[in-house]
């Protein structure tokens, strides 16, 4: 059952190049089909783990000898994020990607990326996690370069070099860890480390892991590739990169390792908190001056990821709930904003805010959904972004972290100012010359944006049941780190 999360997209990625040779249009049908299957499967996953987490041993080899896949609260949350945004992005690609040649290759790479992301989320084996991480990374490097214009190639090369450095550090850390405990199963490593003495080696590993995964997540000292790579990709891919990829191969892998394998010490908590605060402030300050819509959004991603890692770094139950909730919300509204930017580019042919000039009348779906998303990211009350930011701020003050709490509030205000600028220039200003010629985007693109906007509102209104159903099980996995060993190795 769990293995289908990886098998379905891999099978689709294999079949798409074959069938698209015969009929060009069949590629997208197959891709959307596999995307919807995955979405259904991950919704089913929420109910399957009600009676306890599921461990699947590949080939029947019991852990710790074989590779196992684990479906617990945290995995289910991330699977839902991946497959929800993945499905929406595939739906949006239906018409959007017609502008590029070789659609078959695009969908193949997209499905490979989905397979890698799902694999990272369910893997219970450290080397297996690395392999899936590399599948995701290679597919996303190629997708960033998909337009093959000078800028896109340069961004992709930059992304590739830094991404490969991160992968190399992660692999080195896995090697050192393997050398000291002689096992690769994550639960078994946790059990061995609990009784071991070589603290210095573990700290060195932890440093390498933190650096590698922060580079993948785009946290501030390692963020320079992100504002180039995310805008360069086609819009649905930007939505995936900003909404899902940096979270799964950065944040998810990091917190899974730190909470379930190593022990969450005050030192690590301080590192996370300060990385969070610095990312928040630097990201938003760099975002203010941007006039390229997608580039502005990419800088805001850095800032919002700062909130997530800050909340989780607090280490209190409320902080982790806030961090994970904000992670989910951010993936919804940031993907939506990137899709809006893609629609504007589709209709007007430019991403410069000054040139778009008041297209609100001509594009009702785009303007309304982008208004919802902008208010969400800025944290205006009934919408989803408000609640998660509020929880993080309350958690910060509760934990006695005054500097962090105040930074959260200030960054929220600057974010609001920055998005008011976007709304004013892109939608509500007096109509410019371009506007008379533009039309609303095709139906599938409008539908994809509307669904995400609906999610923003619904999660905001019904955030209590949402927290109970999804976020609390995930938080429990992190808080009761030692249970992970018992779950997989059986007491």
């Amino acid at each position, binding site marked *: 059952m769990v293995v289908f999360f990886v098998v379905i997209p891999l099978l689709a990625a294999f079949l798409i190049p074959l069938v698209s040779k015969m009929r060009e249009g069949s590629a997208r049908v197959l891709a959307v089909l596999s995307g919807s299957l995955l979405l259904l499967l991950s919704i089913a996953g929420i109910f399957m783990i009600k009676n306890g987490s599921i461990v699947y041993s590949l080939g029947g080899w019991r852990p710790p000898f074989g590779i196992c896949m684990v479906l617990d609260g945290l995995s289910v949350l991330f699977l839902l994020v991946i497959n929800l945004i993945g499905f929406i992005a595939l739906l949006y690609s239906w018409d959007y990607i017609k502008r590029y040649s070789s659609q078959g290759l695009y969908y193949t790479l997209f499905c490979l990326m989905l397979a890698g992301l799902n694999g990272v989320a369910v893997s219970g084996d450290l080397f297996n996690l690395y392999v899936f991480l590399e599948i995701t990374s*290679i597919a996303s490097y190629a997708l960033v370069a998909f337009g093959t214009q000078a800028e896109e*190639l*340069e961004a992709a090369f930059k992304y590739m070099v830094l991404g490969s450095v991160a992968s190399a550090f992660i692999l*080195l850390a896995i*090697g050192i860890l393997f050398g000291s405990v002689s096992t690769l199963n994550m639960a078994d490593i946790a059990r061995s480390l609990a009784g071991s003495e070589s603290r210095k080696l573990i700290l060195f590993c932890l440093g390498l892991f933190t650096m590698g995964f922060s580079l993948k997540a785009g946290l501030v000292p390692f963020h320079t590739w992100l504002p180039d790579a995310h805008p360069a990709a086609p819009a649905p891919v930007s939505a995936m990169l900003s909404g899902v990829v940096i979270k799964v191969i950065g944040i998810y892998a990091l917190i899974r390792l730190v909470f379930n394998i190593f022990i969450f010490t005050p030192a690590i908590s301080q590192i996370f908190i300060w990385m969070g605060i610095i990312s928040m402030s630097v990201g938003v300050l760099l975002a203010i001056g941007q006039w390229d819509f997608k580039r502005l959004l990419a800088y805001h991603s850095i800032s919002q990821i700062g909130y997530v890692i800050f909340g989780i770094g607090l280490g209190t139950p409320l902080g982790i709930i806030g961090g994970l909730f904000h992670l989910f919300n951010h993936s919804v509204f940031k993907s939506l904003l990137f899709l809006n930017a893609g629609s504007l580019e589709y209709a007007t042919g430019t991403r410069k805010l000054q040139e778009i000039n008041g297209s609100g009348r001509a594009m009702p779906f785009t303007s309304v959904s982008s208004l919802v998303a902008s208010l969400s990211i800025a944290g205006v009350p009934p919408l989803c972004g408000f609640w998660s930011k509020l929880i993080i701020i309350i958690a910060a003050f509760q934990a006695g972290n005054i500097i962090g709490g105040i930074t959260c509030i200030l960054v929220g205000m600057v974010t609001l100012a920055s998005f008011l600028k976007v709304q004013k220039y892109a939608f509500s200003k007096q109509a410019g010359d371009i506007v008379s010629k533009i039309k609303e985007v095709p139906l599938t693109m409008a539908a994809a944006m509307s669904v995400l906007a609906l999610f923003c509102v619904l999660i905001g209104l019904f955030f209590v049941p949402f927290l109970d159903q999804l976020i609390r099980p995930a938080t429990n996995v992190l808080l009761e780190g030692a249970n992970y060993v018992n779950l997989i190795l059986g007491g």
Partner: protein
Amino acid sequence: MSLYILCFILFLLGFYCLLVKQNLIKKIIGFGIMEYAINLFFILLGYRWEGEAPILDKHQVIVNFVDPLPQAMILTSIVIGLGVTALMVAIVIRIYEKHKSFDINEIRKLRG
């Protein structure tokens, strides 16, 4: 121990080359050196002095085996490295077609 340190120095050499060199091709070579240093490190982890090949036979007395697991992992890692290198070279060729240069100073447009 000195072998591990030499291996780490090789890794740092590759890292230095990747970060400092201005030529895109040299950057790729630096990445290759880094990759190989890690592969070497894994193989060293599994190596036993005067160990035997890890093949289980009926009449064999098991005394000193080489650990086969790192070797299996390194096969995977080499394939991944091949994929990344191929993609890097492909992108660099396209960059060269656009700019007619491998020098990073002549290419740089984006500022992160």
